[in-house]
């Protein structure tokens, strides 16, 4: 067995161990706990709110727009963090680059705002 | 100044486009002037190029200038450039093409007055001039062929310009079909030359080693077929008399002065490949055509038909000259003929115009009093074509007859045929002049002939001048006066020299002049003074051109048509059948694979996945091998 595959073997063993452990705990719990099902107990857990209607419910399209905007700025943050940690190294060059990047993103936000996307009607 | 060559064809092309865009808005006479100025400008540019060419040393061989526009068809070993070749031959042709052409443009402004398609006529004229210049200046066979087809197309358009007339439409069709035979010869010759010599460029062809005798003769004869189609030689001449259905300026320019001489030009241009056997054929066909057409001209009543047969006959002379190896004489006659025949046609046009579209000579007579300028200039043209010295026609015809006399195999016979033709020419032209301008008044009372406007008479006077002195470009009296011959010399592989002594030359010249005078005398005796009864002088046999045309019509119409019908049946059943069957097969195959285009994205994704797997499999298979 090659060196490469041997190191994967470790991963394999670790995985098997993890599955075995989780399985063992769940099995033990199942054996030990008493089982008295009621209707209330079998309802899907929704943060304490009773689920109403089917699962093909319509959701507000605004959620979608906000989600997109959120992802946008999330990605912006992901891009800014590494730069921030090496701020001194990149110096003026980095500053200008980042300014352009943020400017373009802000332009997008500005456009979205002007087009009325941010209004929650 | 030689570099200005591009301007020469560019100006008529520009004129064409201008007329295409704004012609119908400018109307009459503006569009006529646009076309005339384009043609005149082209003439001036040609003059400039000519002067530039003269400035170069004639003997060092650098009077040949190639102007390459672009590499046109780079196809493997065949490299065809779109370029112009300026050398003594092409510039000589171009000078009279643009010169005579400009005069005819000017003339047409008067002649086409009041025609509803006035601007369209000039559009075609400009396009024709452009094509003709491409033909003349093309530096290889392919460019020349483009021009060749271009002048052909313009010729059909112009013949059937008044296509409301059934006969005009038919004449156009006839010219088209007959010319296709010649074009076929041109194309095959081009391919044959390419495969034999590996080039189609003139300068390279003339520097190539000779082809084998058989190939050379075949190529020569194919070229002659091409030339015979365009220049109306036996047996392909039939379209030219009918082409007189076109407006008269067209007859003068396209069917007398320029286009029909392009066959002569082609053979002279390709003189290096013509073999002796082929030359003999050319000489015989030329002589036969000359005699045949002259006989036909004797009995025509239509003023333009006489001139048409006369043109065929004169073209026969030119081919006789080529066949005898006297290329300079051929070109010389092309030029003088352009002058006097254009003059005669324009004169006849002036008569027709003045007589309100009457073309029958029997209904004319005594017109010299009412149309003095037309009559005077027409008489000059008559003397020139009849070979009366010192008019232009005498010199060129005399040189051809001398060349025929010296032909190696059957010289005296060719000369004799030429002589008879000369006599007949003098006769039928005198008959025409007498019938139209002399004798008694035969037109009806309600016709009021009148002299034409200045735009029509000016070209007549200028051409008359040229017909008088045109011979001066190649006078045989003193060796240094053979200007044309010395100018054209670099073109030829085997320069032709007359071997006869001075006494023979003079004797031959005298005989031909006498023949001409005899012809004129007969005409005067029979048609003017009526000493000879005229009722036997116009046999129906000749009036109908020996029934050649009718025979063609019967063959093509009878057995020909049924043969064509069979071919068409074969085409529709077997050829079309197999093509359609193949088409259906392809459709079937298409329907078989059509379900793959289901419209479902999942299926398309599967297609991509399968394709990817197939590619990987193919690559893996390649690796295994």
């Amino acid at each position, binding site marked *: 067995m090659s060196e490469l595959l041997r190191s994967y073997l470790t991963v394999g063993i670790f995985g098997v161990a993890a599955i075995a452990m989780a399985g063992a705990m769940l099995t033990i719990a199942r054996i030990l706990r008493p089982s008295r099902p009621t209707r209330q107990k079998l309802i899907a857990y929704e943060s304490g709110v009773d689920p109403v209607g089917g699962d093909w419910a319509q959701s507000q399209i605004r959620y979608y727009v906000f989600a997109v905007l959120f992802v946008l700025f999330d990605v912006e943050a992901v891009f800014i963090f590494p730069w921030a940690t090496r701020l001194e190294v990149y110096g003026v060059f980095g500053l200008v680059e980042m300014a352009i990047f943020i400017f373009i993103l802000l332009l997008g936000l500005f*456009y979205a705002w002007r087009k009325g996307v941010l209004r929650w009607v | 100044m030689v570099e200005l060559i591009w301007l020469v064809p560019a100006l008529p092309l520009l004129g064409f486009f201008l007329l295409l865009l704004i012609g119908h808005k400018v109307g009459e006479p503006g569009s006529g002037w646009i076309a005339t100025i384009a043609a005149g400008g082209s003439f001036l540019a040609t003059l400039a190029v000519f002067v530039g060419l003269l400035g170069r040393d004639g003997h060092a061989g650098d009077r040949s200038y190639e102007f390459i526009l672009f590499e046109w068809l780079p196809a493997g070993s065949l490299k065809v450039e779109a370029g112009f070749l300026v050398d003594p031959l092409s510039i000589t042709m171009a000078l009279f093409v643009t010169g005579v052409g400009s005069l005819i443009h000017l003339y047409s402004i008067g002649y086409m007055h009041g025609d509803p398609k006035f601007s369209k006529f000039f559009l075609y004229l400009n396009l024709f001039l452009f094509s003709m210049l491409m033909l003349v200046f093309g530096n290889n066979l392919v460019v020349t062929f483009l021009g060749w087809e271009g002048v052909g197309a313009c010729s059909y358009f112009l013949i059937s310009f008044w296509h409301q007339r059934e006969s005009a439409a038919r004449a156009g069709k006839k010219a088209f079909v007959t010319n296709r035979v010649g074009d076929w010869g041109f194309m095959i010759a081009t391919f044959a030359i390419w495969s034999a010599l590996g080039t189609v460029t003139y300068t390279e062809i003339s520097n190539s080693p000779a082809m084998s005798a058989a190939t050379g003769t075949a190529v020569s004869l194919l070229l002659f077929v091409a030339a015979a189609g365009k220049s109306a030689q036996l047996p392909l001449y039939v379209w030219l008399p009918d082409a007189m259905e076109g407006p008269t300026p067209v007859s003068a320019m396209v069917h007398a002065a320029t286009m029909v001489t392009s066959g002569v030009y082609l053979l002279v241009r390709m003189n290096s490949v013509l073999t002796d056997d082929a030359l003999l054929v050319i000489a015989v066909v030329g002589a036969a055509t000359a005699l045949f057409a002259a006989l036909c001209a004797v009995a025509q009543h239509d003023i333009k038909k006489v001139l048409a047969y006369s043109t065929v006959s004169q073209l026969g002379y030119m081919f006789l000259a080529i066949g005898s190896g006297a290329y300079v004489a051929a070109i010389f006659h092309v030029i003088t003929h352009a002058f006097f025949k254009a003059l005669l046609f324009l004169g006849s046009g002036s008569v027709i115009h003045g007589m309100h579209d009457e073309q029958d000579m029997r209904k004319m007579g005594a017109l010299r009093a009412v149309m003095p300028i037309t009559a005077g200039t027409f008489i000059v043209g008559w003397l020139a074509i009849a070979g009366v010295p010192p008019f232009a026609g005498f010199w060129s015809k005399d040189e051809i007859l001398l060349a025929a006399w010296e032909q190696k195999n059957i010289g005296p016979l060719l000369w004799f045929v030429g002589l008879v033709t000369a006599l007949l020419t003098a006769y039928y032209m005198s008959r025409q002049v007498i019938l139209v301008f002399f004798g008694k008044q035969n037109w009806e009372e309600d016709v009021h002939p009148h002299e034409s406007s200045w735009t029509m008479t000016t070209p007549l006077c200028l051409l008359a001048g040229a017909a008088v002195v045109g011979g001066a470009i190649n006078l045989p009296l003193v060796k240094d006066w053979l200007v044309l011959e010395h100018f054209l010399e670099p073109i030829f592989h085997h320069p032709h020299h007359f071997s006869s002594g001075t006494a023979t030359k003079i004797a031959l010249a005298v005989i031909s002049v006498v023949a001409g005078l005899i012809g004129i005398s007969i005409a005067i005796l029979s048609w003017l003074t009526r000493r000879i009864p005229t009722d036997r002088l116009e046999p129906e046999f000749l009036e109908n051109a020996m029934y050649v045309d009718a025979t063609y019509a019967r063959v093509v119409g009878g057995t020909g048509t049924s043969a064509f019908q069979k071919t068409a049946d074969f085409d529709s059943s077997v050829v079309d059948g197999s093509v359609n069957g193949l088409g259906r097969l392809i459709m079937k195959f*298409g329907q078989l694979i059509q379900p793959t285009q289901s419209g479902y994205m999942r299926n398309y994704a599967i297609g*991509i996945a399968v394709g990817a797997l197939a590619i990987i499999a*193919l690559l893996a298979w390649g690796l295994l091998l």
Partner: protein
Amino acid sequence: MGSLQLVGFVGPSVNWWALLPQIILLGAALAVLLVSALAPQRASTVFTTVTTLCAALTSFVVALGLWSDVKADGPSSSIASAFGVDGFSIFFTVLILIGLATTALLSHGYLDREEMDPPEFHALLLCSAAGAIVMASANDLIVMFLGLEALSIGIYVMIAMHHRRSEARESAIKYFVLGAFSSAFLLYGIALTYGATGSTNLVHIRSYLDAVVFQDQHLLMAAMALLLVGLSFKVAAAPFHFWAPDVYQGAPSPVTGWMASIAKAAGFAALLRIFFAAFASHDVDWAPIVGALAVITLVIGSVMAILQTDIKRMLAFSSVSHAGYVLVAVHSASATGTSAALFYLFTYTLMVLGSFAIVGAMGPDDEHPLSRYTGLGRSRPVIAIGFTVLLLAQAGIPTTSGFIAKFQVIAAAVESESYFIAGVSMVTAVIGAFMYLRIVMAMYVVDEGEEGPRPIWHWTTSVVVLAAVGFTIIVGLVPQFLIEFARDAVPVLVRG
């Protein structure tokens, strides 16, 4: 860890001049968005069209300047060899800019007629064009992928922009999902290429492959296969073409023209750069596969085309078969073949843009049945002649640019001794000609007294059609200048 010290960052040298064409386009896109956001009422079509045209023109001038630089100093590359500046990149920049200007003109009448939002369309178009230029110029697979995505994302949205039409949405979804699917193949191919050669940079890949003989080249083969799949999808080569007819049919006509011309051209640019330039030493491996794809594409494209009854679907399959011809040229893996491919793409772009210009102007995009064109020759003779020229050019009739293009492609195939493929190209050209002639016949053969259609015609469309027809005929008669341009544009990989 005390040894950490601040070292001044030295970025790769950037030849800003070389990046200027796409920077101008992106700048124009931002400007259009900004102005339309600030403007009190909806920005006019005139403003957006003029802005796009100006951007294209400026970019074009810069590209010409770059061309003279390349002519003088030879090809170079910038940003650590990630971005090539050679005849190839400039050829495609010019082509893409022509396509951009044309599409902008076409959209002018279209956006007004269909009441679509001009600024968003133009901003997306400009971004898409910038992406296409990046894709054609990139010397690095990752940069190329970025360009591809910029190009594609713009197109996805442009297709869907016609939000009142469900067909447009269907097209957009189909193209988006399948595009993402094929992008995955492409990315995986890039990853495997990196695994096989240790770099994503084409210059490095080329020199590595030249220097190293593989004992076991499975990885490289798999990489090639996956790259080929990803790019074949973009150029709509069979069997990755299924999306094309559906998407072309549903998309707004100007966008269809853009997809059929520029998206395809950019795809081929990437294909040529990767396979012809970078994998040149392994052409014995990839050329047969490309040849097989070419044959399948030619056959399916031409055969399916003649079964269609909808003009846009016909043209879609015809564009599939055109991709086949370009693949034939790529297959020959020679400089002759590459310049034949470039010539083909250039002439084809103008033909297809002109064709879709006419199709778009003929009426709304619901469906384009052939019967809509019946009698066009009588009612609008000039348009009919223009369309006829463009169709005959696509069929490859002599005296049009299409003939010269097909001729060169087949000549390249013959030169590389691929006689079978050359034969298939000729046969499919005949099959394809049938389809084009069907459209021409429909325009001219009409019953007596029947009136043809009289579409509302915007003058910008006339400009485009006139230019396309003129170009097609001029190149058909005097092809030399374009042949030379294409000859000078064979891709070169240089370190820089």
